[in-house]
């Protein structure tokens, strides 16, 4: 049976289980938007293409299914470069479909032409410039496989207009359903080497001061349950990186919390003093290691990653195991049992004592504001954590509010924390929260945002209002680019350069209301809880709660850039103890 490129694309997406596409039509992609009217796939019309990309990311992170965005050629394609780079850094499975000028016009500087595959080569796991309509079913089938397997990532499919335009003979071909992948160079390896796993289990058994250093790979591999089992079987404490918040319950006694530049004292120092780091789906990012040559100087390293290029990239591993985190953890559990299980583990009472001593001495703290002063952002997050439902999904932007959310929100379930970790993309939270809510409509979804981030992507609140996507936004408004302000205060002699926004505009409450959302303003501590409760009850519209916070509030602990983690700077109230 004959088909055309546009219909073939939609059938291929349906076969892959796609239920929603985030996007915006335009010239080159128009032919695909016509049959979309008759498809079962829901389309969310965004207000800016960047929003479509981040929504696809939020959807993917919350559901575990690949997020799909679709935009036209040229400027629309360049507008999704940031989400692609973000998804590439954080290993988010995502499919981006872009329109392209017709094959005959490629290379002629045609209207809205951009070299999309050339531009996105460095920020995608793979990309395709589809040359003929009959390749579409196979390319879509392969693209989803690449995006979702191995180390997940974004895959872009660029579609010239003539091969999707049913009125163009170039788009007509004999329909087929691909039965196999055409990827001779792609074979993800899931199982780790058995001998290395045994060796690793023995190192873990014997270690006196071990730490499980767990990263985003735990969530990608859907290995949270297995991680819990391994931690409890071995009794080894766990640190959860920014990318694995929720991958191990915060309330579990073995969880030391988040390590890194704004990690808590115990998590940072435990890694620094460890004799063994077991890195599971983590990549020794510079925000974790601090000054690299002084990072964890006494530790042997077991490094488990599905991406072999991560092994020995930053820190040389004593045992490097290529494999999927879930598969390898299951292997480690078995190997540990064979070594005698929990009872055979080394005596670590001294280590446990040391850890709990640090936890007692240096908990995460902040000084509550005096009546009449602006709010402390820490307090807002603490209240949010206390009042929101247990399985609430929290999406954050980038900056102080992100670090505070990661520190002060208690995450006890996987896939409840969505943020831009590697790329650090300001403006991520609102579209990511929308994508998460679309994928998980029955869950409460809060975006935690700063005023800098909010002004970058707030137009998507209109999308949320029009589409009935009832997310809630906790907007921590301190009138500043807060994290930059913090650096200028600490490292540039309090010379504040271009970090203060106008103190009176915008009026966020009015702005929210003008976009079809409920707007609430909170200025004093006693209003915080009631405002969150009120927002939790609103399910027919999005809500923006503006919390007027103190611009002088800083994020501690902090390891200044380029400094050893041993010189972690704690909250001012804890110094000189």
């Amino acid at each position, binding site marked *: 049976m004959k088909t055309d490129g546009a219909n073939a694309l939609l059938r291929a997406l349906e076969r892959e289980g796609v239920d929603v596409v985030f996007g915006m039509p335009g010239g080159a992609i128009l032919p695909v938007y016509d049959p979309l009217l008759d498809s079962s796939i829901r389309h969310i019309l965004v207000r800016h293409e960047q929003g479509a990309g981040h929504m696809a990311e939020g959807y993917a992170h919350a559901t575990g299914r690949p997020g799909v965005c679709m935009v036209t050629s040229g400027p629309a394609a360049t507008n999704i470069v940031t989400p692609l780079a973000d998804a590439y850094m954080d290993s988010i499975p995502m499919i981006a479909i872009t329109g392209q000028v017709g094959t005959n016009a490629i290379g002629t500087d045609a209207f809205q032409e951009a070299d999309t*595959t*050339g531009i996105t*080569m*460095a920020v995608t*796991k*793979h990309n395709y*410039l589809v*040359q003929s309509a009959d390749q579409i079913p196979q390319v879509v089938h392969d693209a989803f496989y*690449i995006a979702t397997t191995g180390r997940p990532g974004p895959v872009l499919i660029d579609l010239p207009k003539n091969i999707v335009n049913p009125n163009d003979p170039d788009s007509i071909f004999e329909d087929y359903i691909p039965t196999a992948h055409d*990827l*001779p*160079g*792609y*074979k993800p390896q899931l199982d780790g080497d058995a001998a290395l796993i045994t060796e690793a289990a023995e190192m873990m058994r014997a270690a006196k001061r071990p730490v499980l250093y767990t990263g985003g790979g735990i969530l990608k591999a859907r290995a949270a349950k297995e991680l819990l089992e391994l931690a409890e079987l071995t009794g080894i404490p766990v640190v959860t990186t920014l990318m694995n918040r929720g991958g191990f319950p915060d309330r579990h006694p073995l969880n030391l919390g988040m390590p890194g530049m704004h990690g808590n004292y115990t998590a940072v120092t435990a890694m620094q003093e460890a004799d063994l780091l077991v890195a599971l789906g983590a990549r020794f990012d510079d925000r974790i290691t601090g000054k690299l040559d002084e990072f964890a100087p006494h530790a042997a390293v077991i490094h488990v990653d599905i*991406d*072999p*290029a991560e*092994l*020995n*990239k930053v820190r040389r591993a004593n045992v490097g195991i290529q494999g999927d985190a879930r598969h390898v953890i299951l292997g480690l559990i078995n190997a540990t049992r064979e070594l005698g299980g929990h009872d055979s583990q080394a005596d670590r009472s001294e280590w446990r004592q040391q850890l709990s001593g640090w936890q007692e001495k240096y908990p995460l703290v902040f000084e509550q504001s005096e009546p009449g002063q602006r709010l402390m952002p820490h307090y807002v997050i603490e209240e949010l954590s206390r009042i929101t439902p247990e399985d609430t999904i929290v999406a954050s932007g980038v900056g102080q509010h992100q670090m505070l959310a990661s520190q002060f929100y208690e995450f006890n379930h996987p896939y409840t924390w969505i943020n831009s970790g590697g790329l650090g993309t300001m403006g991520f939270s609102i579209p990511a929260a929308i994508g998460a809510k679309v994928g998980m409509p029955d869950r409460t979804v809060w975006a935690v945002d700063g005023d800098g981030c909010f002004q970058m992507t707030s137009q998507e609140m209109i999308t949320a209002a029009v589409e009935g996507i009832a997310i809630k936004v906790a907007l921590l408004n301190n009138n500043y680019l807060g994290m930059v302000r913090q650096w200028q205060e600490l490292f540039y002699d309090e010379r504040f350069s271009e970090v203060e926004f106008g103190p009176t505009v915008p009026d966020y409450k009015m702005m929210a209301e003008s976009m079809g959302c409920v707007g609430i303003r909170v200025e004093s501590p006693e209003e915080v809880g009631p405002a969150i409760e009120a927002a939790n009850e609103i399910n027919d519209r999005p809500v923006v709660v503006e919390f007027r916070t103190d611009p002088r509030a800083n994020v501690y602990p902090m390891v200044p850039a380029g400094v050893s983690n041993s010189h972690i700077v704690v909250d001012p109230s804890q110094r000189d103890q």
Partner: protein
Amino acid sequence: MSKTVSTEQNPQTPDLHTVVAHVENKAGVLARIAGLFSRRGFNIASLAVAPSDDDRFSRVTIVVDCDAGALEQVTKQLFKLINVVDITILVSGSAVEREFVLACVACPPDRRDELTFDATGFDHLVIEESSESMIVSFSGRAERVDEFEEMLRPFGIIDIQRTGKVALKSLD
């Protein structure tokens, strides 16, 4: 077909490594390889690409200028490219390596004997001759091609084109 990586270190030339990649013969593959090298800060000393005996695949021979740690990263990052099917690192002692050079040399007929004498030991070919100059070719190991070029230099090199290195694993 499955991917294989062999990462034996090259004991003789610690900084120049010969990496052979079999790649799918698809549009943009060379751009992917070149882009990878540039964005990860690796240096390509030379590059040779041509279709293999199976026209679905091309064979890319890359000479990389890097230390052993970087070589591991180069290899693994290349391997991650979806279109790269397998990668081999060839070790000097157990590989046959050749470069090819075409050179146009200022060499009027009265100096031809001199050039022939100097070129003794180089199994070169004279391809074209004119009253002012001649075009010669030579293929050999990179060091031999260097020597050949040095031999020509006093005559006056008008134009020269060297290829990247190509290499095959030696017979056992």
